[in-house]
């Protein structure tokens, strides 16, 4: 297991697509940094006129990519997040299956081990690509924004939202948990692409699958459940998968809810992947 896992991890790290996904993610997250730069300029301009006390408006905790709710950079980043997660390595099983490489490995080792190693490598690839871009965004924002605490009035966060208490009491831990949650989301999305590659005839379509699924299900929820805001349960929780990727949403997204959805999705993905992968003698 260890040998094959190391082999898969090495292939994943050496994949040029991982590098491309990180570079594209960083480029998109840079848009958010540029917007924040203009925000600071605007803040200093009005400060000269009305002498606003404090710098909480500029706090990094509600202006970095996972805290902002109204920037172009953040909007683009979270829209293409399923693609950024799937690009690095979710295509690998499809390529190895169609080139015959996978079967060469299978006759030399256990199929279960190979599938498990591939799953772990793909999960990590998605997480690394997305979280690296987010860490870059946080560090770049730290050049221009102060690391001061934020207040509920300045953020969209409040009671019932993702780790809202931590945001105002221990923001550094909040950021860390946001990064971990995003890592988990991205890993799950990458694994969705991996599962799709077992069913699809085209590698490009299998990489698009997580994006299509998330956009499509958000579309169906908005279209088929038009009065969901009035419903007792659905109105309280964020149901749109595209919105759930954000740390701050318009509807309620408490941490236990987000983590339960993540875990359920990952379990379903793993079960489908394992059963479909193990079904035939050869891939």
């Amino acid at each position, binding site marked *: 297991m260890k040998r094959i896992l190391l082999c898969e991890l090495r292939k994943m790290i050496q994949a040029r697509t991982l590098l491309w996904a990180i570079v594209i993610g960083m480029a*998109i997250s840079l848009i958010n940094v540029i917007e924040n730069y203009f925000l600071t300029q605007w803040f200093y301009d009005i400060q000269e006129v009305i002498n606003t006390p404090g710098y909480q408006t500029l706090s990094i905790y509600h202006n970095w990519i996972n805290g902002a709710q*109204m920037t172009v950079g953040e*909007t683009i980043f979270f*829209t293409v997040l399923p*693609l950024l997660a799937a690009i690095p390595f979710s295509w690998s099983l499809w390529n190895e299956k169609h080139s015959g490489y996978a079967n060469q490995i299978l006759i030399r080792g256990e199929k279960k081990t190979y599938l498990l190693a591939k799953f772990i490598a793909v999960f990590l690839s998605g997480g690394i690509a997305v979280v690296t871009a987010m860490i870059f965004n946080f560090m770049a924002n730290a050049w221009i924004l102060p690391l001061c605490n934020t207040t509920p009035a300045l953020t*969209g966060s409040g009671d019932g939202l993702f780790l809202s208490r931590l945001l105002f009491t221990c923001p550094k831990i909040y950021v860390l948990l946001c990064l971990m949650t995003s890592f988990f989301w991205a890993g799950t999305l990458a694994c969705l692409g991996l599962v799709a590659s077992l069913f699809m005839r085209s590698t490009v379509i299998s*990489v698009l699958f997580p994006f299509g699924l998330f956009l499509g299900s958000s579309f169906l929820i908005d*279209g088929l459940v*038009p009065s969901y805001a009035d419903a007792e349960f659905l109105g309280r929780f964020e149901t749109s998968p595209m919105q759930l990727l954000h740390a701050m949403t318009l509807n309620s997204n408490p941490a236990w809810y987000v983590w339960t959805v993540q875990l359920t999705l990952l379990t379903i993905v793993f079960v489908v992947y394992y059963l479909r992968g193990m079904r035939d003698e050869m891939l």
Partner: protein
Amino acid sequence: MRCFKLIKYDLKQGILKNRLYLLVPLSTVIICNQCRLHLAAWDQSGTWAIYLAYCFRGLQRISRQTLSGGFQIPVFWVLMLVLPLTVTLDYPFRDIKTIGPQMLVRSGRRVTWWLSKCFWNLCSTIVYFALVLFSVAVFCFCLKVPISMETPMGSMMALFSEADITEAAGEITAGQVLFVFIIIPFSAVAALNMEEMLFSLIFRPIYGFLFSVALVTAASYVTSPFLIGNYANVTRCDAFIDNGLNSQSGLLICIGVLFVSIAAGALIFRSRDILLDYKEL
């Protein structure tokens, strides 16, 4: 003759055998149903033109100051633009990995292959729009909604409730409806599709798609004449919205992008190594 055969082959393989087109009527009907509920809340019944406009209704012009709470991406509008991008993404580059080199040799000129793919791309956009128009018409027919190009003021008010609608909105002619609700969104989608094919040629299809989705998402937020996705957003059109984007110049920009993409693609494809290493994506 060779060129004609190539086009015939592309239309058959890239359009007739493309099952992704099945998603178009499905999505359109779901959006139309949402439009029906929206109009019912305003006590309006609408017309075919109103239902069509709803399909390409994005967000009004927004800014950080006007947003309250947070920005939520207009999923319906994004899907209406991303769907044609998905439909036209895979075929040309799947073709070049399989039968493409044979076709290139037989057609005699590399540019012929590229032009044939551009023609196919344009035809795909036409088929996409035809499916949207037809699905809206079928939906209206089933609900006994008038299949007309009239835009009653009450329905327009319901449709663009958030935007600064002008008084002229209720008096727009059938020609204007055709121009604003069909021709402008069509040209914007066609330009986006061609742009995606160009970027897919330069980089890889998946990066071309990612770039195009990023452009569409940016257009949902930023009102700029250079983000062509804005022209497919009828809520930002100057025909009935104060300080909207000029639709005539929009048409020219879209046609410009379309031709630049075709010309740039032809130039790049002439010297492109088509036996690319596709080990990764």
